[in-house]
């Protein structure tokens, strides 16, 4: 278990920043990768966003005020980078977010980096149709097993609001799965 306090201290010190940054990447790359992947879906896009996230962390670490956990702060940056990326892609394709997500989810079937069965594909399509907040909360709670308190710190939303979002998300996903399976 990495000592976050010590790591932040090294990151905010010019003489130790480079080494500390490498340590940071090694320890958090996978967790952040899978979080971003669930938002942007596609591996190549995830790679772009992940690298941009770490670059942003590098340039902004001095402004990390230690009022939240380092991981929550990084997770928040990753979430915002991923959402910005999706919004930009949708705009480039002259489409709205929901339509963009539907397109991406539909392309999963032929994606070499997706080895899911039919029900997993249906689940991803259901998630793609959710509003942004519900999608985020569902992915973080259901797949990542995060607690509401942790999600609240990352998304800067109240626990009550998150619970409501999750409740709606689960209902919608269940409805979609029922309508798309025998």
């Amino acid at each position, binding site marked *: 278990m990495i000592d976050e306090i010590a790591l932040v201290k090294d990151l905010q010190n010019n003489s130790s920043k480079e080494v500390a940054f490498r340590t940071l*990447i090694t320890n958090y790359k996978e967790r952040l990768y899978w979080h971003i992947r669930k938002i942007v879906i596609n591996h190549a896009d995830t790679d772009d966003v992940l690298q941009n996230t770490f670059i942003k962390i590098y340039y902004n670490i001095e402004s990390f005020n230690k009022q939240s956990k380092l991981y929550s702060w990084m997770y928040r940056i990753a979430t915002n980078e991923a959402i910005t990326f999706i919004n930009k892609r949708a705009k480039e394709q002259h489409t709205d977010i929901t339509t963009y997500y539907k397109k991406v989810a539909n392309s999963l079937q032929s994606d070499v980096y997706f*080895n*899911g069965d039919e029900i*997993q594909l249906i689940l*991803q399509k259901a998630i793609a149709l959710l509003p942004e907040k519900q999608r985020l909360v569902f992915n973080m709670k*259901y797949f990542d097993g995060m607690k509401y308190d942790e999600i609240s710190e990352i998304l800067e939303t109240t626990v009550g609001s998150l619970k409501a979002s999750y409740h709606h998300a689960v209902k919608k996903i269940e409805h979609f*799965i029922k309508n798309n399976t025998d």
Partner: protein
Amino acid sequence: MNKESLHSEQFIEQKVNKKQPFSVSKGYFENFDSTIYQKTKEQNFPKTTAFKVSDTYFKNLEDRIISKLPKNKKTLKVVRFKKYVLNIIPFAAAAAILLFIGLTTYNFKNNSGIDLDSLTESDFEYWLETNPINTNDIAIVLNQNILDETPFYFTQIEDESIEEFVNTNNNSFLINELDE
């Protein structure tokens, strides 16, 4: 229960007053039904996303990311300065739009049958092409507090940077930026 146990029980009761020491988080019982409902539904959902990644992807990721950082401190300073300048441009660009609206409104007052609502983006873009933005002019329409808050002088922004920003961003977004 024998006398000894009863006596012990009474002793305990006297000490702790049978008060329940445990508590629950706020709203726990109110949300309990919903929680159980969700868990029953989740039982039917697949447990993983089925996304995968190549075995070698995470190896050397550190080197790939670090290679994108500036090589020397001088370059880092330039990057930071550029980032600072680019943060100022939305204000300047939004001010350009207000300048356009202000000037056009004045002209419209003297023309019947034409109103502000009939202005289109193409009107603004034409105006930009035929009236190169001068950052000194823009400063006139900006709130004084924006000029005071930044130590950066607007005359240092390249006019081309402002025009490029305006052309690649939605104009209503720029107006909202200025309002904030």
